[in-house]
Every structure is written in structure tokens, then in C-alpha cells.
């Protein structure tokens, strides 16, 4: 959809007013007992700002972090911290974004926020060089290792076609809610990595997925009962080739975008379009759609598009 200038102005003004109102109201909403009830969007897409600013705006459109994280809850944030590269190479979720989400969680009253990933490269270096460890700690989260098998516990996946059981990180089971924060990237084999594929960092034996129909395993995992309350897809810097690890900064295109959604299949479908790929072409997306795990038909969704 092409946004007209008038729409854009309206949108911007609207967003600005909403943000302003939220700021000025502060804690008064509760006093009046009437929290502003925004329209229910399936997907919120933001473009044109820095990762943290885009998140501020996007989460506002979804009713604020309080809609997803309740007071006193333990929250798991699962960014993509797969590869031992610097943030500019966009192989890992943007640390600014991670930091801002944690701040929102804590502001919403989260008791504790945890961050971890089962990295592909050496985990100590990856946590450090991705900039995520520092950002998360600065925001007040606990950064937890996921490097050995004893952090993982067996779960059952009823209805899984290929993946019927797997081992997931204990934090996923111990926390009250989890937020999926993937970065959109090209992927050499599945063509794209985003929401659903990011779950491979929750499990111990990724190799098994690779050896047993990768697409089906990715879709199967989404059946597991503990689903993310929110997906935030980092499309600020996007690796468009040589993914998921990348070779040089020439692999990266700055898209300055972000997609927020509670429907991860829809999120993946929208993300695929950002890479210029039709969602049907990425096998695990239609698989998950058919299993009723989300809606890949973007036309039928209520999408809020914001340009900053």
C-alpha cells in the first residue's frame, strides 16, 4: 500500500498525539479507571526511525507493554544472538531494541527480565560482541547462559508431524511470558529467518531439526503451548544475502523498519515481503498457517502502518 502524504501527516500527528497523551497522562489513567482502548491491530509496522524509537511507537499502538506483561511477572526475552559479529553486520538483534524492550517490561512491572540465546558461535564472544549482553544488563535484565545441555528440559509437542519432543531452555518453562525478538535475515536454506525460525535458539538439539525436515520442525515447534505474547521483528539493518551469518557489511541493507505482532505467522509473512519473497515460498510459513498457528494472509489482517 502506498501511503499518501495526507495519510502520512495524519498518522504522524496521531502517533505523536498518542505518545504525547500517554506521557502527560502518566499514571493518571488508572485514577480515572479508563485506559485508552486502542483499536486492535494484528500487525503494527513502523518505518523510518531508530530501533528504540520505533518500538516506543509500535508498542503504543498495541496498547503498551502492560497489555502483554503483567505486574510481578517473570519475562523471557529471546533475541537472536546467534553469531559472533558486531551489531553493524546485523546478524543479531539490534542491542538498542533489546534494551528498550527490557525497559518497557520493567516499567510495566515485570519482576525479572531474562535474556538468552543458544548461540551458534562461541557463546561468550557472541554475547559480548553482539552488544546484547551489555545492553541487556544496562537495562536491568539478567543475561543467562544457554551453552550446555543441562540448561535444557524435555518437552512434548502434541500434534507435531516430525518434531514430537525436544529440549528447551529451562527459562522458557520457568518464566511467565516470553517475547520473541528476532532480526529479519536472509537464510541460505530456509530463505528467511524471523519469528518462527528464531525458536531454534530456544532448543538444545538444533542439528536434529536440520536432519529431520527443517521446515516441518520449525512449524511443529510453533505448536508448543508456550507461545510468545509478542513478537518484535527487528528490520532496522537487514541482511539480505549470505544469511544467517553474513560475510561483510555489503550483505546488509538499512531498512529502518520494525514489525510488531502477536501472530508470529503473520509476522513472518510480513517479514518475507520485506525481503521481496512471497510468504508461500518459505515452506514453514504455509505449514504453520495450515496448522492454524497464525494467519499468513496479510490482506485479511488489520495492519497498522506507521512512518516516522
Amino acid at each position, binding site marked *: 500500500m502506498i501511503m499518501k502524504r495526507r495519510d502520512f501527516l495524519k498518522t504522524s500527528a496521531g502517533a505523536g498525539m498518542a505518545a504525547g497523551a500517554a506521557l502527560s497522562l502518566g499514571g493518571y489513567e488508572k485514577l480515572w479507571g479508563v485506559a485508552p482502548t486502542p483499536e486492535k491491530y494484528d500487525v503494527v509496522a513502523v518505518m523510518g526511525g531508530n530501533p528504540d524509537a520505533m518500538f516506543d511507537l509500535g508498542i503504543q499502538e498495541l496498547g503498551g507493554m502492560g497489555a502483554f506483561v503483567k505486574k510481578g511477572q517473570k519475562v523471557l526475552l529471546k533475541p537472536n544472538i546467534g553469531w*559472533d559479529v558486531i551489531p553493524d553486520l546485523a546478524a543479531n538483534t539490534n542491542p538498542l531494541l533489546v534494551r528498550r524492550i527490557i525497559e518497557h517490561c520493567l516499567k510495566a512491572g515485570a519482576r525479572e527480565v531474562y535474556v538468552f540465546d543458544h548461540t551458534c558461535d*562461541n557463546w*561468550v564472544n557472541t554475547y559480548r560482541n553482539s552488544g546484547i549482553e551489555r545492553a541487556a544488563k544496562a537495562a536491568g535484565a539478567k543475561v543467562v547462559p544457554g551453552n550446555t545441555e543441562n540448561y535444557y528440559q524435555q518437552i512434548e509437542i502434541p500434534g507435531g508431524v516430525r518434531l514430537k519432543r525436544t529440549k528447551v531452555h529451562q527459562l522458557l518453562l520457568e518464566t511467565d511470558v516470553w517475547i520473541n525478538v528476532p532480526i529479519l535475515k536472509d537464510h541460505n536454506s530456509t530463505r528467511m529467518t524471523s519469528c518462527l525460525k528464531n525458536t531454534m535458539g530456544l532448543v538444545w538439539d538444533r542439528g536434529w531439526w*536440520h536432519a529431520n525436515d527443517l521446515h516441518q520442525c520449525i512449524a511443529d515447534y510453533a505448536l508448543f503451548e508456550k507461545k510468545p505474547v509478542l513478537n518484535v521483528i527487528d528490520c532496522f539493518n537487514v541482511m539480505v544475502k549470505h544469511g544467517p551469518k553474513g*560475510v561483510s557489511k*555489503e550483505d546488509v541493507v538499512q531498512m529502518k523498519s520494525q514489525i510488531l505482532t502477536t501472530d508470529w505467522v503473520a509476522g513472518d509473512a*510480513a517479514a518475507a515481503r520485506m525481503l521481496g519473497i512471497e510468504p508461500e515460498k518459505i515452506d514453514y510459513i504455509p505449514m504453520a498457517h495450515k496448522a492454524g498457528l497464525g494467519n499468513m494472509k496479510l490482506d485479511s489482517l488489520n495492519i497498522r502502518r506507521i512512518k516516522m
Partner: protein
Amino acid sequence: MTSPFLRTFRIVFSAIVLVCFLIVFIDLRYKIPSEYINALIYLQFVPSVIKFYDLRIMAAGGFVIVLLLTLLTGRTYCSFLCPLGIGQDLFSRIGGRLRKKFRRFGYKRPHTIIRYSLLAVTLVVTLVWGVYLLTLLDPYSIFGRFTTYFARPVVILINNFLANILGKFDNYSLHHINIKGYQLLSYSIPAAFFILVGTLSLMKGRLYCNMICPVGTLLGLLSKISFLRVRFEESKCTRCGRCAIVCKSSCIDFLRLDIDNSRCVECFNCITTCPDKALSFGVVRIGKKEHKTDESKRRLIAGALLGIAGIGSLAKAQNNNVPTPKKGTTVREEKTYPVAPPGAGSIEEFNKHCTACSLCISVCPNQVLQPALKQYGLVNMMQPVMNFHKSFCTFNCTRCTEICPTYALKPLELDAKKLTQIGKVIFIKDNCIVKTEKTACGACSEACPTKAVYMVPYEGNLVIPETNESICIGCGHCEYACPTTPYKAIYVDGNAVHVAAERPEIREAEISAPEEFPF
């Protein structure tokens, strides 16, 4: 000097040295800077000699300082700087505690034939053939293996235990560490030496240093003429014999007021013990008679000749064990060569210089370096080899090349390391999931840092790996990531001689940022 502080100083100094070595070898967080490690190891005798032989620059000449120090002060190296020596003192002390009532060192005759033969054989083998015997006998390397093979795993187990407990309290300041590799067979030699050195030091003080250690024997030759020595003051001595009882080297013949300076390690126990201050550390008075002519020199020569006679044939026989290429790679991953660590230059050169001190194995953050069994041939057992079934080489790490005490691994700048091809990727299509299962995989290409492994269209929607050897650096991440069993579908075959890989071609992205949301 008769001050009891000599001994106290020795104990404090050596304790600090030992702790520093233990920290370097057991550093579970890989935080000790390489410069610090190099400074600590600079004075280690054998590594320094090998490094000097290779570089021929005085900057690598820590051993010269040791030689001068020995000429000046006797075998202080053995008590102050040698971690194996210091470790033995610790053992010896424990031994003393265990059998307090029975333990009397007392004077013993030197094991002249054994020690000089061993020195001669070691020298000859090393000069004629290579470091193989030094690998076994260099005290620093022995110490390195003890810590890498025994102490480090124990500390890791303790760490994991604590990490478990802390984790229960939601504290993640410690984390679990997997112990990778370490096949039982590779423990055989260190275990045998541990029993040997451990028992000797528990029961007999410094007998290992004075009978077997070639460095001890060599420095002993020099310390015979050292400037400063422990000496008797004849007029003060009451022949009480206490000095001989506490002498770990069993080298004080108090009845003849004679100290065998070739065995004395300057521990100063005797000086502290002597109630009459009859023993002191100082300049030997001129005019005092030296040792009588001894058979030892003749024995030395005889031993050396004996050694040389045996060497040639031994060397020939062993040369057959150097890995030779096997023809025809099949579906089984068959490596023509093992993969030697970056900085090795070539397997041959590497094998010649490495004394298997295992420092690189200890400091490798990915634990991809593992002690070799027979990959390099049995004589090179325990030298580090890349094990890509257990782990892979981190792309932006040069740790092992920075700290190698013997220069078997030469320093590589990070940029150079990223272009150093230590092996080449080989893809076995018939093993590949994409072909056998007709499902997507790509684990290998995903992990490849240079995209020497990339995916090309296959049947239907599928893509299958293809390789570009010229930009492969042999890091082994593809082999590690490949999920097939028992044989991998992709693996790295070692380069006998490490070469420069080509730089990956860099092209601008074809996709540009969408100006509007494409949905």
C-alpha cells in the same frame, strides 16, 4: 647470607609463580591477556631454547638469562621458576606431613649414569631428529599437561557444581562448561608421568629433578661453577646432620662438609635449619677444594655415544609414522592430513617444534584443540590437533597463535588468520540430508564464515550445498554443524602446508530498502 628469610623468600616467590601458572592454565573465562602469559613463560628454559633456535633473535632468549642466573646463583631456576619443580616441592611437603616420623632425606649418591645419559640422549635426539624426547621430558611441558589434563577438568567440575547451586538461586555469574574431547588414551603419558613425578616427589624430594630432568642436569653442570653457592663454615659446624635431613636433593654430605652443587636447587632449607649458622649462601672462597675428578664426565661421554648409536635407526623407524596421504576419498570422511592449528605453517614444521605443553589446548575458548592420538603419528602424540567433530575454530580468534611458548604456532594477525587456510572443505553429496532425505538443511552453509559453502538450487524448492575451496580457511564449522551420522556430509581435510585463502568476493546487495511497506 645465613638469613632464614632466604627460604621464606623462596617459598613466597615460588608460590606466586606457581599460582600464576595455574591461573594461566586454568583460566576458565579466557580473560588472561596473551602478553601476560608470554611474560610468564619467557624464562621457561626449553620453550625458550626452541623459540630461539627458530627465530635467532635475542628477544626470544629467555634461556640465556636462565643460564646466566645459574652461573651466578646455581640452580635457583629449579626452585624459583620451574613450575614442575615448585609443584614437586608442594608434593614433597605433603609427603613430609603424611609420614613425618619416617621422612629423612639424608645424603644419597648421585645417579650419575642415569642423569647424564638421559641428558645426552635428549640432546642428541633433539639435535638429530626433533623435539620428541624433549616433549616427554621438558619440565614446563610436563607441568602444562598435568594442569591441562588433570587440574583443569577438576576445576571445571567444581565450577559446574557451583554453577548448578547458584543457578538454583537465579544467579548466573558462573556458567556450565562442557569438557570436550579428552580421549582416555591421550591421558596415558601424562598419567604415567604424574605417577612417576608424584611418587618421587612424595617420597624422595627432588629426585626426579636430579635423576631424570634434562634441564636440571644441564643446569647442574653449570651450577658446579656458579658464583654463589650454599657452603659450609667449617669452624661453626657441629656435624649435627640436620641440614642433610631437610635437603630435598639429598646432596649434603655433612660428614665431609661437602655439598653436591650440581644437585642443589637452592631451596635454602638447610640454611634455615642449621642451628649454628654454619651454612650460608655466598661466594665460594677461593682455595677451597673442588670435587675430585670424577667418573661422571667419562660416563657422560660414554652415555652420549651410546645415545647417538641408537638414534639414527630410531629416527628412521619413527619417520614412517608421519602422516602420508591416503588416496581416494570415499563416503567415509577420510582425511589425508589432520588439521593443524592456525599459525602452524606446515604440519611437518609444527611437529618439529611443539613440545605438547598443552597451553593452547587450555586457552582455546572453543576447545577445538584436542590432544592428538595418532593423527600426526604416534611420536607426536599429545600435540594439539583440530577436532571438528567436537568443536570448530572461532573465526575472529587468534588466541593459540599468540601464546605458543615454542613458536610451533607462530603469531598471526587476525586479518591474516582469517585468510589462512589450514584445511579445505570437502562435500560428500551422497551423505547430505538434502539428497538423502529430500528436505532442507543448510547447517553447513549457515555456519560458514566466508561462504566457501553456499547453497545452489536443487530439486523443487530445495537448495543443496556447493563449495568453493579457494576461499575456505578450514575452520571446520561446517563439519561441526553437519547433522549427519555416523559420517559427516561435509568435512575439512587438513593442509600439509598452510596456504593463503582467497578473499571472499564482496558484492553490493541486489535488494534495496523498500520505501513503502511491501504488505
